[in-house]
């Protein structure tokens, strides 16, 4: 059995204290979620049920631990010198938008301290609070996991409608974003859909980079620990050839395609 869907209840994840963020963990040497060296805050709670999820332990919106925004600011300041010119703080997850109201405050405090902000999101929610948060997000990393709504549903449990709207909204603000794409053999490597994905975003002026993240099995043990059924247990990572082929397709539509 997969981790059950949870109702989106603001209270459960927000608790009552606006200064406390529900997080899973912190990585202080983040080099894969945004530019430079970053402190990455993995928030707890997600409503996507991606078959290939590498962090299934971040799904439960009741899990994780609370940490105050001020403590996070203090930690960020401790490593500010490592951020240098390019780096900063990334909030990843889990799905950060579930805690967007608190993140508005967090990002404001980071900006007060001259720290670059990055949001790594599935684009689950779009409302005025999301808009306010995106206003404070220097760089958005948006995961568009599939361009076809049915495949997206099969792969994540949810449709991609809101994600695409978030992308559209970001484009309208003129602020930069990187699009990310997890390449899973048999699930998200269909040529026609890769083209469709490229065509959909090719005219976007705010997309500075597209990142292809080849599926890997490093999250497998977490599924086992959690006792969850892992449908992709036998799926192999894409070969270098397959990854390059996907990159070639994306390069027809984007100038800057990176393989992670």
């Amino acid at each position, binding site marked *: 059995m997969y981790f059950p869907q949870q109702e989106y209840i603001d209270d459960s994840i927000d608790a009552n204290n606006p200064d406390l963020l529900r997080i899973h963990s*912190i990585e*202080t040497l983040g*080099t*894969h979620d945004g530019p430079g*060296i970053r402190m990455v805050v993995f928030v707890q709670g997600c409503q996507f049920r991606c078959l290939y999820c590498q962090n299934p332990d971040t799904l439960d919106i009741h899990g994780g631990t609370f940490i105050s925004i001020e403590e996070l600011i203090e930690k960020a300041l*401790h490593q500010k010198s*490592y951020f240098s010119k390019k780096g900063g703080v990334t909030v990843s997850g889990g799905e950060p938008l579930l805690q967007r109201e608190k993140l508005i405050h967090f990002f404001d405090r980071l900006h007060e301290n001259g720290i670059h902000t990055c949001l790594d999101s599935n684009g689950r929610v779009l409302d005025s609070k999301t808009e306010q948060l995106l206003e404070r997000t220097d760089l958005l990393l948006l995961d568009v996991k599939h361009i076809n709504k049915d495949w997206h549903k099969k792969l994540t449990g949810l449709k991609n409608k809101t994600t695409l709207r978030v992308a559209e909204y970001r484009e309208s603000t003129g602020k930069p974003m990187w699009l990310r794409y997890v390449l899973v053999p048999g699930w998200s490597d269909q040529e026609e859909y890769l083209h469709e994905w490229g065509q959909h975003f090719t005219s976007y002026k705010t997309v500075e980079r597209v990142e292809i993240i080849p599926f890997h099995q490093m999250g497998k043990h977490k599924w086992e620990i959690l006792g969850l059924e892992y449908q992709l247990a036998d799926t192999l990572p894409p070969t270098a050839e397959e990854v390059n082929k996907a990159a070639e397709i994306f390069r027809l539509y984007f100038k800057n395609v990176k393989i992670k």
Partner: protein
Amino acid sequence: MESTTETLYFKPGNWNNAIDVYDFVLQNITPYEGDQSFLVGPSEKTKTLWDVCKDSLLQERKNNGCLSIDTNVISNITSFGPGYINKENEVIVGLQTDMLLKRAMKPFGGIKLVESAVAERGLKVSDEVVKIFNYAKDHNQAVFSAYDSEIRAYRSKHLLTGLPDNYARGRIIGDFRRIALYGIDRLIEAKKADFAAVAGEMTDHKVRLREEISEQVKALQDMKIMANSYGIDIAVPASNAQEAVQFTYLAYLSAVKEQDGAAMSLGNVSSFLDIYIENDLKSGLITEEEAQEFIDQFVMKLRLVRHLRPGAYDEIFGGDPTWVTEAIGGQLNDGRTKVTKTSFRFLQTLYNLGASPEPNLTILWSKNLPQGFKDFCAQVSIDTSSLQYENDDLMRTNRGSDDYGIACCVSYQKIGKTIQHFGARANLPKALLMALNGGREEDKGSVVIRNIPQMEDGILNYDSVMNMFKITLAEVARVYAKSMYIIHYMHDKYYYERAQMALIDSDPNIDIAYGAAGISIIADSLSAIKYAKVTPVRNDIGLTVDFNIEGDFPKFGNDDDRVDSIAKEITTIFIDELRKHMAYKNATPTLSLLTITSNVMYGSNTGSTPDGRKGGEPFAPGANPMHGRDVNGAIASLNSVSKLNYEDAQDGISYTFTMVPKSLGSDKEEQVSNLTTILDSYFDRNAHHLNVNVLDKETLMDAYNHPENYPQLTIRVSGYAVNFVRLSRAHQLEVITRTFHDAM
């Protein structure tokens, strides 16, 4: 002296009037701000020569790490005739013995140790040599004749360990550049003037100094003889780049022919040699290929330095290290960089000859280093894991000189001006257990430290433990200082380093380099006692065999001040205690947080500790957080270590850091950029040292299982580098279980 010969022109300065290599460098250095694009590959001669060496190295490994031993000759500067690898291809010559990788006996540190090292190889020391020690005394015998029961107990109960009382202390770096710049005759002249200046009423100090200088003069004369056996005249200064490299090497070779100190370091020769190389390149006398050939072949020779060691030695210094430490880079006080093209050429040897633990290449990192050099260092680290880094901005300002080398692993030494006396280290977790056991050692219960009251039963109280621990540390410091006084007194008397000391100013200032192991265990243990509930589990005679820990507690390595401050405080307390005691030759006490590879041995000799570490488990190396307890990523871990105060541990604070390549970024360019940023920021926080390994755990596991496929796999361990396949299995496993910093 003349500043020009036919082909050399040097800018004159004080170096013409006195022995002052530093001034020569200041006047003549050509700082290089560019990148590595000028570098070239190995010459045909170098390749041929290195192939011969690789064959012999393979034979050595197959033969249990020792190719051959000369059991008849006591090695000194002149005792072996010339040795060659493959004469027609050698542009830099000289071996320690008459045969490649043959090891020689240097028994004045301790004949017993030599005898057992030889016996372990199924050989026997010649009767003639054994007989000599029926009449002569060695360092080891002399030290033990002066030890008291207290020192012996501290030593045998593993409170003080690895003491240089049965092997040579090493660490003294001669200014090997002097022979190239001045030639032997001029150096002898200067030493004779020093001797004459020791005048007036005699004192112990003056008599000793006169004897020392006489020994140094003899050593200089011997060096000339040894060089002559290779057809080289070092009476006069080097007249070109090849000679400068050759003379410098012969000076170093003299030291390692006669001394087998644990660490026999080289200093900082690269930018000095660059002056000659630049000169010859400008005059069109040599090409870049030849310049690189000199350095490749010099470095090749340094890789082949061997000492005769018994098996037990491997426990404290695993992997047969020699610590031919060469400090590269850094800045001058006048704001120019010390980076030259030859700094790059030294690093290039890791490509031209492949990765290697020796020489122990140490980058003196300054935030002002040229970007091209920073990037090249990072690239070399990622490709070879063969470099370590030390904070030049910190050492230069805190210690005062911009002309220094690194002795052994991590220790500052002003070249030609100061020396240090090596002090091994005290086992702090063992001391903590004695504090908790009324001065008894936790294994058998014998009383080691008197006058320590027995703790009350039940949950440990932080303040009482701290009080007891402070009393214990004061006692440890007292006995430690006493033992060091004896050791260095006797070492000077029975195994004086005349070759190195001949290349150092007469009567230099001395640091006595004390050490401490297990600081992260101490921090975590005291943190557990303070923030969780720790109850000792005692056996029937009241000794702690384990600890029950209820609740969580902050752990060193997570950038948490609550525990990081404890590590800092204990370091301060210990050095303050050590400073209260007299040292031989009025040496200045310094402290290192360093373990070499003895962290494994310390662990196996130390019972369970209040941090949850079980008896027998290895300590973390150096000042590293304990394995797997730094859970907030690499930077939190770096931040914790950088809080330790260099003022308290001027002999060095060693941190060995292992990252998987991917955690630095997804491509080489990103990885290089991120690693330089990490180094800039870490050292900007006044951190002292960083060993950088960029390795996959899988690679190490594969090397553990298939050593034959990884003859040159190099990894950085505490303050130095080793061939992974030459470590013992226990050390290999310990390295594999260390924290690998990996992204989620």
